Protein backbone atom coordinates (compact mmCIF):
# COMPACT_ATOMS: atom_id res chain seq x y z
CA UNK A 1 0.00 0.00 0.00
CA UNK A 2 1.37 3.35 -0.96
CA UNK A 3 2.36 5.60 1.86
CA UNK A 4 0.91 8.75 0.37
CA UNK A 5 -2.75 9.58 0.09
CA UNK A 6 -4.46 9.85 -3.28
CA UNK A 7 -4.30 13.62 -3.26
CA UNK A 8 -0.57 13.96 -2.94
CA UNK A 9 0.10 13.05 -6.55
CA UNK A 10 -2.82 15.05 -7.85
CA UNK A 11 -1.94 18.49 -6.58
CA UNK A 12 -4.43 21.29 -6.29
CA UNK A 13 -1.91 23.78 -7.57
CA UNK A 14 -1.51 27.21 -6.04
CA UNK A 15 -2.91 30.68 -6.47
CA UNK A 16 0.25 31.40 -8.42
CA UNK A 17 -0.29 28.63 -10.97
CA UNK A 18 -4.00 29.46 -11.41
CA UNK A 19 -3.30 33.18 -11.84
CA UNK A 20 -0.43 32.49 -14.25
CA UNK A 21 -2.70 30.21 -16.26
CA UNK A 22 -5.52 32.74 -16.22
CA UNK A 23 -3.35 35.68 -17.36
CA UNK A 24 -1.69 33.61 -20.11
CA UNK A 25 -5.14 32.41 -21.25
CA UNK A 26 -6.47 35.98 -21.38
CA UNK A 27 -3.53 37.05 -23.55
CA UNK A 28 -3.76 33.96 -25.77
CA UNK A 29 -7.50 34.56 -26.23
CA UNK A 30 -7.19 38.32 -26.80
CA UNK A 31 -4.55 37.94 -29.54
CA UNK A 32 -6.60 35.77 -31.95
CA UNK A 33 -9.89 37.62 -31.26
CA UNK A 34 -8.25 41.03 -31.71
CA UNK A 35 -6.48 39.87 -34.84
CA UNK A 36 -9.61 38.47 -36.50
CA UNK A 37 -11.83 41.40 -35.43
CA UNK A 38 -9.27 43.83 -36.87
CA UNK A 39 -9.47 42.03 -40.21
CA UNK A 40 -6.36 39.87 -39.97
CA UNK A 41 -3.07 40.04 -41.83
CA UNK A 42 -2.75 40.53 -45.59
CA UNK A 43 -1.72 36.90 -45.85
CA UNK A 44 -4.71 34.76 -44.85
CA UNK A 45 -2.57 31.74 -44.03
CA UNK A 46 -0.49 33.78 -41.59
CA UNK A 47 -3.70 34.80 -39.74
CA UNK A 48 -4.88 31.18 -39.63
CA UNK A 49 -1.46 30.07 -38.40
CA UNK A 50 -1.36 32.64 -35.59
CA UNK A 51 -4.95 31.83 -34.47
CA UNK A 52 -4.31 28.07 -34.39
CA UNK A 53 -0.90 28.55 -32.77
CA UNK A 54 -2.46 30.59 -29.93
CA UNK A 55 -5.09 27.87 -29.42
CA UNK A 56 -2.50 25.08 -29.20
CA UNK A 57 -0.39 27.07 -26.70
CA UNK A 58 -3.51 27.88 -24.65
CA UNK A 59 -4.49 24.20 -24.47
CA UNK A 60 -1.00 23.41 -23.17
CA UNK A 61 -1.26 26.26 -20.64
CA UNK A 62 -4.60 24.86 -19.41
CA UNK A 63 -3.12 21.36 -19.08
CA UNK A 64 -0.20 22.55 -16.98
CA UNK A 65 -1.76 25.39 -14.92
CA UNK A 66 -5.37 24.21 -14.47
CA UNK A 67 -5.21 20.42 -14.77
CA UNK A 68 -1.75 20.25 -13.12
CA UNK A 69 -0.68 17.54 -15.52
CA UNK A 70 2.80 16.14 -15.18
CA UNK A 71 4.62 12.94 -16.02
CA UNK A 72 4.41 11.67 -12.43
CA UNK A 73 0.63 11.74 -11.82
CA UNK A 74 -0.82 8.20 -11.49
CA UNK A 75 2.62 6.75 -12.28
CA UNK A 76 2.59 8.27 -15.73
CA UNK A 77 -0.71 6.74 -16.85
CA UNK A 78 -2.44 10.13 -17.10
CA UNK A 79 0.20 11.42 -19.48
CA UNK A 80 0.32 8.17 -21.45
CA UNK A 81 -3.46 8.02 -21.95
CA UNK A 82 -3.43 11.69 -22.97
CA UNK A 83 -0.68 11.17 -25.56
CA UNK A 84 -2.59 8.18 -26.95
CA UNK A 85 -5.75 10.30 -27.20
CA UNK A 86 -3.88 13.14 -28.92
CA UNK A 87 -2.50 10.73 -31.54
CA UNK A 88 -5.97 9.27 -32.22
CA UNK A 89 -7.50 12.77 -32.41
CA UNK A 90 -4.87 13.96 -34.90
CA UNK A 91 -5.30 10.86 -37.09
CA UNK A 92 -9.09 11.14 -36.98
CA UNK A 93 -9.35 14.86 -37.78
CA UNK A 94 -6.47 15.09 -40.28
CA UNK A 95 -7.52 11.82 -41.93
CA UNK A 96 -11.17 12.86 -42.27
CA UNK A 97 -10.30 16.22 -43.78
CA UNK A 98 -7.76 14.70 -46.14
CA UNK A 99 -9.99 11.89 -47.38
CA UNK A 100 -13.11 14.03 -47.74
CA UNK A 101 -11.18 16.80 -49.50
CA UNK A 102 -10.04 14.33 -52.15
CA UNK A 103 -13.51 12.83 -52.35
CA UNK A 104 -14.96 16.25 -53.10
CA UNK A 105 -12.38 17.18 -55.71
CA UNK A 106 -12.30 13.78 -57.43
CA UNK A 107 -15.93 12.73 -57.37
CA UNK A 108 -17.88 15.93 -57.77
CA UNK A 109 -15.89 18.36 -59.90
CA UNK A 110 -19.06 19.91 -61.28
CA UNK A 111 -20.12 20.94 -57.78
CA UNK A 112 -17.13 23.25 -57.34
CA UNK A 113 -18.12 25.38 -60.25
CA UNK A 114 -16.25 28.45 -59.12
CA UNK A 115 -13.00 26.56 -58.70
CA UNK A 116 -12.93 25.30 -62.28
CA UNK A 117 -10.65 27.07 -64.76
CA UNK A 118 -12.45 29.58 -66.97
CA UNK A 119 -12.22 27.44 -70.12
CA UNK A 120 -14.09 24.52 -68.49
CA UNK A 121 -17.05 26.47 -67.15
CA UNK A 122 -20.52 26.51 -68.57
Amino acid sequence: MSAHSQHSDHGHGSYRSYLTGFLLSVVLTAIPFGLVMAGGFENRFLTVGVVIGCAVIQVLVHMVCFLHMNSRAEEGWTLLSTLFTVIIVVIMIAGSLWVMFHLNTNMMPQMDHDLLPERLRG
Partner: protein
Amino acid sequence: MSTTYWETEPHHHEEGASTNIGFWVYLMSDCLMFAVLFATFGVLHGSYAAGPGPQDLFDLKLVAVNTAMLLLSSITYGFAMLSMAQGHKSATLRWLGITLVFGLCFLGIELYEFNHMIHEGAGPQRSAFLSAFFTLVGTHGLHVTFGSLWLVVLMVQVAQRGLIPANQRRLLCLSLFWHFLDMIWIGVFTLVYLLGVI
Protein backbone atom coordinates in the same frame (compact mmCIF):
# COMPACT_ATOMS: atom_id res chain seq x y z
CA MET B 1 9.59 -16.95 10.54
CA SER B 2 9.19 -18.23 7.05
CA THR B 3 9.96 -16.21 3.97
CA THR B 4 7.11 -15.58 1.55
CA TYR B 5 7.90 -15.28 -2.10
CA TRP B 6 4.46 -14.08 -3.09
CA GLU B 7 1.93 -11.79 -1.52
CA THR B 8 -0.48 -13.81 0.53
CA GLU B 9 -2.76 -10.88 1.31
CA PRO B 10 -4.91 -9.40 -1.42
CA HIS B 11 -3.90 -5.91 -2.45
CA HIS B 12 -5.48 -3.29 -0.32
CA HIS B 13 -6.74 -0.31 -2.26
CA GLU B 14 -7.76 2.89 -0.60
CA GLU B 15 -11.35 3.80 -1.23
CA GLY B 16 -11.50 5.84 -4.41
CA ALA B 17 -7.80 5.34 -5.13
CA SER B 18 -8.52 4.53 -8.77
CA THR B 19 -11.19 7.19 -9.24
CA ASN B 20 -8.79 9.80 -10.62
CA ILE B 21 -7.33 7.66 -13.37
CA GLY B 22 -10.74 6.20 -14.21
CA PHE B 23 -12.29 9.63 -14.55
CA TRP B 24 -9.34 10.77 -16.62
CA VAL B 25 -9.89 7.87 -19.05
CA TYR B 26 -13.57 8.88 -19.28
CA LEU B 27 -12.49 12.43 -20.17
CA MET B 28 -10.18 11.09 -22.87
CA SER B 29 -13.04 9.07 -24.38
CA ASP B 30 -15.18 12.21 -24.25
CA CYS B 31 -12.34 14.00 -26.04
CA LEU B 32 -12.48 11.38 -28.81
CA MET B 33 -16.21 12.00 -29.19
CA PHE B 34 -15.56 15.73 -29.58
CA ALA B 35 -12.80 14.91 -32.09
CA VAL B 36 -15.38 13.11 -34.25
CA LEU B 37 -17.69 16.14 -34.06
CA PHE B 38 -14.80 18.48 -34.89
CA ALA B 39 -13.86 16.27 -37.87
CA THR B 40 -17.49 16.27 -39.06
CA PHE B 41 -17.62 20.05 -38.77
CA GLY B 42 -14.29 20.34 -40.60
CA VAL B 43 -15.59 18.26 -43.49
CA LEU B 44 -18.93 20.11 -43.72
CA HIS B 45 -17.78 23.64 -42.86
CA GLY B 46 -18.16 24.83 -46.45
CA SER B 47 -21.46 23.10 -47.28
CA TYR B 48 -23.77 26.11 -46.94
CA ALA B 49 -26.43 24.83 -49.39
CA ALA B 50 -26.72 28.45 -50.59
CA GLY B 51 -27.68 29.39 -47.03
CA PRO B 52 -26.00 31.79 -44.62
CA GLY B 53 -22.32 31.28 -43.82
CA PRO B 54 -20.19 32.10 -40.76
CA GLN B 55 -19.66 35.70 -41.88
CA ASP B 56 -23.41 36.36 -41.84
CA LEU B 57 -24.18 34.52 -38.61
CA PHE B 58 -21.41 34.83 -36.06
CA ASP B 59 -21.11 37.80 -33.72
CA LEU B 60 -17.51 37.65 -32.50
CA LYS B 61 -18.15 40.12 -29.65
CA LEU B 62 -20.73 37.74 -28.20
CA VAL B 63 -18.35 34.80 -28.59
CA ALA B 64 -15.59 36.79 -26.85
CA VAL B 65 -17.91 37.50 -23.90
CA ASN B 66 -18.85 33.80 -23.79
CA THR B 67 -15.19 32.79 -23.82
CA ALA B 68 -14.52 35.20 -20.94
CA MET B 69 -17.40 33.66 -18.94
CA LEU B 70 -16.00 30.15 -19.30
CA LEU B 71 -12.43 31.23 -18.55
CA LEU B 72 -13.56 33.12 -15.43
CA SER B 73 -15.57 30.09 -14.30
CA SER B 74 -12.44 27.98 -14.74
CA ILE B 75 -10.32 30.13 -12.44
CA THR B 76 -13.09 30.50 -9.82
CA TYR B 77 -13.36 26.69 -9.76
CA GLY B 78 -9.59 26.64 -9.24
CA PHE B 79 -10.03 28.96 -6.25
CA ALA B 80 -12.76 26.64 -4.91
CA MET B 81 -10.27 23.75 -5.07
CA LEU B 82 -7.66 25.82 -3.22
CA SER B 83 -10.21 26.67 -0.51
CA MET B 84 -11.12 23.00 -0.29
CA ALA B 85 -7.45 22.03 0.13
CA GLN B 86 -7.26 24.48 3.04
CA GLY B 87 -10.44 23.03 4.54
CA HIS B 88 -12.53 26.20 4.27
CA LYS B 89 -16.05 24.94 3.70
CA SER B 90 -17.86 28.27 3.34
CA ALA B 91 -15.18 29.72 1.04
CA THR B 92 -15.37 26.58 -1.11
CA LEU B 93 -19.14 26.91 -1.37
CA ARG B 94 -18.84 30.61 -2.21
CA TRP B 95 -16.37 29.99 -5.06
CA LEU B 96 -18.49 27.09 -6.36
CA GLY B 97 -21.50 29.42 -6.37
CA ILE B 98 -19.59 32.05 -8.37
CA THR B 99 -18.48 29.30 -10.79
CA LEU B 100 -22.10 28.28 -11.23
CA VAL B 101 -23.14 31.86 -12.02
CA PHE B 102 -20.46 32.15 -14.72
CA GLY B 103 -21.45 28.75 -16.12
CA LEU B 104 -25.11 29.78 -16.29
CA CYS B 105 -24.14 33.08 -17.96
CA PHE B 106 -22.27 31.07 -20.60
CA LEU B 107 -25.31 28.87 -21.18
CA GLY B 108 -27.65 31.87 -21.30
CA ILE B 109 -25.54 33.63 -23.94
CA GLU B 110 -25.26 30.44 -25.98
CA LEU B 111 -29.02 29.85 -25.87
CA TYR B 112 -29.57 33.49 -26.88
CA GLU B 113 -27.23 32.96 -29.85
CA PHE B 114 -28.95 29.71 -30.90
CA ASN B 115 -32.39 31.26 -30.55
CA HIS B 116 -31.31 34.27 -32.60
CA MET B 117 -29.92 32.05 -35.38
CA ILE B 118 -32.98 29.79 -35.51
CA HIS B 119 -35.28 32.83 -35.72
CA GLU B 120 -33.23 34.11 -38.64
CA GLY B 121 -33.96 30.84 -40.43
CA ALA B 122 -30.48 29.47 -39.77
CA GLY B 123 -31.54 26.42 -37.77
CA PRO B 124 -29.82 23.04 -37.83
CA GLN B 125 -31.95 21.88 -40.75
CA ARG B 126 -30.89 24.74 -43.04
CA SER B 127 -27.57 23.29 -44.30
CA ALA B 128 -24.95 20.64 -43.53
CA PHE B 129 -22.73 23.40 -42.16
CA LEU B 130 -25.41 24.46 -39.68
CA SER B 131 -26.22 20.85 -38.72
CA ALA B 132 -22.56 20.27 -37.89
CA PHE B 133 -22.36 23.62 -36.08
CA PHE B 134 -25.39 22.97 -33.85
CA THR B 135 -24.24 19.40 -33.12
CA LEU B 136 -20.72 20.43 -32.09
CA VAL B 137 -21.53 23.60 -30.14
CA GLY B 138 -24.75 22.07 -28.76
CA THR B 139 -22.92 19.00 -27.45
CA HIS B 140 -20.45 21.27 -25.67
CA GLY B 141 -23.34 23.29 -24.25
CA LEU B 142 -25.04 20.10 -23.08
CA HIS B 143 -21.81 19.14 -21.27
CA VAL B 144 -21.76 22.53 -19.53
CA THR B 145 -25.44 22.04 -18.60
CA PHE B 146 -24.77 18.68 -16.97
CA GLY B 147 -21.60 20.06 -15.38
CA SER B 148 -23.70 22.84 -13.81
CA LEU B 149 -26.24 20.29 -12.57
CA TRP B 150 -23.40 18.25 -11.06
CA LEU B 151 -22.06 21.44 -9.48
CA VAL B 152 -25.42 22.13 -7.78
CA VAL B 153 -25.55 18.54 -6.48
CA LEU B 154 -22.03 18.82 -5.07
CA MET B 155 -22.81 22.16 -3.43
CA VAL B 156 -25.72 20.50 -1.61
CA GLN B 157 -23.46 17.57 -0.65
CA VAL B 158 -20.73 19.85 0.69
CA ALA B 159 -23.27 22.00 2.54
CA GLN B 160 -24.81 18.95 4.23
CA ARG B 161 -21.78 16.74 4.91
CA GLY B 162 -18.83 19.10 4.71
CA LEU B 163 -15.51 18.51 3.00
CA ILE B 164 -15.31 14.77 3.72
CA PRO B 165 -12.84 12.73 1.58
CA ALA B 166 -15.64 11.45 -0.67
CA ASN B 167 -16.79 14.99 -1.42
CA GLN B 168 -13.20 16.11 -2.01
CA ARG B 169 -12.83 13.31 -4.55
CA ARG B 170 -16.06 14.34 -6.28
CA LEU B 171 -15.01 17.98 -6.39
CA LEU B 172 -11.69 16.95 -7.92
CA CYS B 173 -13.48 14.97 -10.65
CA LEU B 174 -15.78 17.88 -11.45
CA SER B 175 -12.78 20.23 -11.57
CA LEU B 176 -11.17 18.00 -14.21
CA PHE B 177 -14.48 17.94 -16.11
CA TRP B 178 -14.92 21.71 -15.90
CA HIS B 179 -11.37 22.56 -17.02
CA PHE B 180 -11.69 19.96 -19.78
CA LEU B 181 -14.81 21.72 -21.11
CA ASP B 182 -12.91 25.00 -21.14
CA MET B 183 -10.21 23.33 -23.23
CA ILE B 184 -12.80 21.99 -25.69
CA TRP B 185 -14.20 25.53 -25.93
CA ILE B 186 -10.74 26.78 -27.03
CA GLY B 187 -11.07 24.40 -29.99
CA VAL B 188 -14.63 25.56 -30.66
CA PHE B 189 -13.99 29.30 -30.69
CA THR B 190 -10.80 28.85 -32.72
CA LEU B 191 -11.93 26.36 -35.35
CA VAL B 192 -15.62 27.22 -35.62
CA TYR B 193 -15.92 30.95 -34.94
CA LEU B 194 -12.54 32.56 -35.67
CA LEU B 195 -11.50 30.42 -38.65
CA GLY B 196 -15.06 30.73 -39.99
CA VAL B 197 -14.92 34.50 -40.02
CA ILE B 198 -11.34 34.91 -41.32
